[in-house]
């Protein structure tokens, strides 16, 4: 576990001696006093450290003004297993690709992605991108909507920057060839989503993320300065210590197709690896979202923030409740729209009791977070796997006209929604927290920038406003460009640096034995399911200190059991395989979520705990997780590579 978790000031942890045991309504309304209270200023905290080393420590290798103009290194490699780039981008979603396209004007870029390039959360983000594009709209309004949705935990500077720069980012996307819906008069069609006071959602039919991804990918593939390395799984960042600072020099990857370790040495690294939905059993995220970036960053001594704010959707189709179970596990959850409840759908538990009126007088029409908590509470109390959403009392033609997707999907699995209730269960959707970023995407690790879902920029606060995630990715990817470029120009790559770190070794049937490999694989899959089960059961939507402590204990036990098995069967510190590396990242992220949740002694936004069920003004500060102490670290908490040389890397 992380050794130091604080919610702002460490003393705050001990201040709140009161324990609330209220049974009151779980309405998300609250009152705020006018004065803002913030121990940590996002931009200053991180930027100060960045500025201090520009003065001296961080130019690795002194470069005179003559050399500094354009120090782009051609992609020469001493062997095929080490590659040198000015910029390395981890992740090929909107953040990674947008950044790559921009920095490619300054130097050469490697984009590393663990699957096919289009496989990312971006591709599944189908709603839209929010931006102030209507003259009747205003940046202030978008800011206000964002801060209200974020339960006022957002960083105001971040919100201002994102809302202000959003429109420009959209224009650029259009210039790059992204095609958004428009009206007959040729103007962009703007929709209005829940939480927004104005129409400001730019979209491409119902596949906005896919359209943006398509446009960016096309540009990336056409750019001679960008090399895309698909099926390259990022293992750990390569770092060194420079006095008190940690410096990032690149990343080790595993080429999944050739089973080979490929080391990337670069002057600047952008982490844009997306979310961690697969720490939970039911998620909308594609399989690639295993929290790799958050875990690698934590292991590399980056500060992590606000991991307790996990966004769930209350009603995803529950495969367990379908008469014909899908033959293969559904990769990403099928979310049932609120429109079903809006059109009169009723929620029942498996005893056919209508439970919503108990929780809220608005019943099924209560706000989504109230519904999510209610369903979660029912499931935990009754120890059941799903609840039922029944629309069958409505006219058949209307149901089929409004919800044909649900109807056909259910019918494929033996369920007729015009006659039977739909089994539903909440699904994890988005991580508001992540690697703490300053206003230019900088982290406390020099040379490491972050953008997109992996980052915690302060935009989302305690809950994300709809359609703000693609926007955040675009804005921060762009903002990271200038500091990245400056850093790149003042850095000289040490081409002999590649052997300063031990190399990961790929686990093969030859090295460990066929039978051992298959046992490890089987155990890893089972352990993943168990971890997801623990997370859902104890770190779900309705939390409590007891349950969180139980989660902490169970996760530690599970991790120990898994690691022990591996290491007793010939696994070593530097051995890697895709499933094992994903598993260690899942463990790492799960622990970060639990630690963060334990640290917040209030309920706010997405984080609800029965021990502190109310919002506390004095707790309106981000949760910070500092790096763990190496002595307590498990395999998932330590970087694989050790520095093999004793000399520093300056």
């Amino acid at each position, binding site marked *: 576990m992380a050794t130091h978790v604080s919610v702002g000031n460490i003393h705050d942890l001990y201040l709140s001696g009161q324990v609330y045991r209220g049974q009151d309504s779980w309405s998300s309304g609250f009152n705020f006093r006018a004065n803002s209270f913030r121990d940590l200023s996002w931009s200053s905290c991180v930027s100060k450290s960045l500025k201090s080393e520009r003065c001296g420590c961080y130019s690795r290798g002194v470069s005179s003004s003559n050399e500094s103009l354009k120090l782009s290194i051609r992609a020469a490699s001493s062997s095929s297993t080490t590659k040198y780039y000015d910029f390395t981008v981890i992740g090929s979603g909107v953040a990674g690709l947008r950044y790559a396209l921009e920095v490619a004007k300054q130097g050469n870029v490697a984009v590393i992605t663990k699957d096919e390039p289009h496989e990312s959360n971006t591709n599944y983000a189908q709603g839209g991108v929010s931006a102030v594009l209507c003259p009747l709209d205003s940046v202030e309004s978008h800011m206000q909507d964002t801060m209200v949705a974020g339960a006022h935990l957002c960083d105001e500077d971040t919100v201002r920057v994102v809302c202000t720069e959003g429109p420009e980012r959209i224009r650029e996307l259009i210039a790059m060839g992204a095609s958004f819906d428009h009206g007959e*008069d040729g103007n962009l069609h703007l929709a*209005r989503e*829940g939480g927004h006071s104005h129409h400001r959602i730019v979209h491409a039919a119902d596949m906005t993320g896919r359209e943006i991804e398509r446009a960016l990918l096309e540009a990336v593939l*056409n750019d001679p300065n960008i090399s895309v390395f698909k099926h390259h799984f990022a293992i750990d960042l390569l770092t060194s210590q420079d006095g008190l600072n940690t410096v990032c020099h690149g990343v080790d990857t595993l080429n999944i197709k050739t089973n080979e370790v490929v080391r990337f040495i670069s002057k600047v690294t952008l982490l844009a690896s997306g979310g961690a939905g697969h720490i939970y059993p039911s998620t909308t995220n594609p399989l690639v979202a295993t929290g790799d970036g958050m875990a690698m960053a934590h292991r590399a001594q980056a500060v992590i923030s606000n991991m307790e704010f996990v966004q769930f959707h209350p009603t995803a189709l529950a495969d367990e409740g379908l008469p014909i179970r899908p033959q293969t596990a559904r990769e990403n959850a099928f979310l049932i729209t609120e429109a079903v*409840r809006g059109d009169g759908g009723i929620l029942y538990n498996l005893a056919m009791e209508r439970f919503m009126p108990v929780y809220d007088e608005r019943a099924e029409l209560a706000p989504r977070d109230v519904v999510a908590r209610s369903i979660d509470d029912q499931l935990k109390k009754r120890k059941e796997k799903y609840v039922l959403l029944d629309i069958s009392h409505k006219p058949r033609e209307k149901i089929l006209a409004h919800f044909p997707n649900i109807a056909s999907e259910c019918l494929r699995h033996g369920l007729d929604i015009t006659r039977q209730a739909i089994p539903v269960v909440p699904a994890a959707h988005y991580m508001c927290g992540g690697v703490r970023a300053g206003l230019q995407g900088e982290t406390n690790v020099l040379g490491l920038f972050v953008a997109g879902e992996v980052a915690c920029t302060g935009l989302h606060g305690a809950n994300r406003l709809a359609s703000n995630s693609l926007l955040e990715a675009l804005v921060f990817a762009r903002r990271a460009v200038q500091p990245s470029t400056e850093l790149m120009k003042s850095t000289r790559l040490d081409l002999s640096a590649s052997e300063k770190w031990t190399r990961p070794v790929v686990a093969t049937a030859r090295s460990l034995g066929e039978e051992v490999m298959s046992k490890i694989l089987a155990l890893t899959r089972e352990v993943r399911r168990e971890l997801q089960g623990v997370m859902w059961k104890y770190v779900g939507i309705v939390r409590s200190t007891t349950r969180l402590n139980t989660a902490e204990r169970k996760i530690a036990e599970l991790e120990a059991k898994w690691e022990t098995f591996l290491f007793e069967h010939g696994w070593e510190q530097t051995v890697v395989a895709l499933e094992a590396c994903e598993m260690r990242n899942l463990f790492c992220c799960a622990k970060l979520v639990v630690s963060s949740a334990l640290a917040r002694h209030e309920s706010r936004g997405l984080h609800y705990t029965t021990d502190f069920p109310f919002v506390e003004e004095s707790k309106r500060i981000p949760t910070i997780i500092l790096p763990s102490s190496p002595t307590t670290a498990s395999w998932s908490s330590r970087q694989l590579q050790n520095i093999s040389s004793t000399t520093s890397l300056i």
Partner: protein
Amino acid sequence: MATNKIVRLIAPSRSASSRFLEPVSRFLSSGTLPPPPQSPSPSPNQDQVVKPDQKLQEKRKEEEEEEEEGGGGEFVNEDTGEIGGPRGPEPTRYGDWEQRGRCSDF
């Protein structure tokens, strides 16, 4: 909940604040696909516009149109004037973004 009227943007004017509307409308209002214009942004980094593969885009649009039921061009929403948008009820009418029952954003 307030009605979800779709707001039309005002026609492009010469004012600086709505300058950005111009390239959009030029790009989108004609039947064929003209190459995307240079963005008028004053940002110093923006000296290069990446042009998409126009043939690819046109092909994709054709494929999309073929998929449309009832044939003959893109779907135009009579109430809102939106071209190429989703058929059926407004996707955001209950706050989330839904298409034919499946929610994709919220």
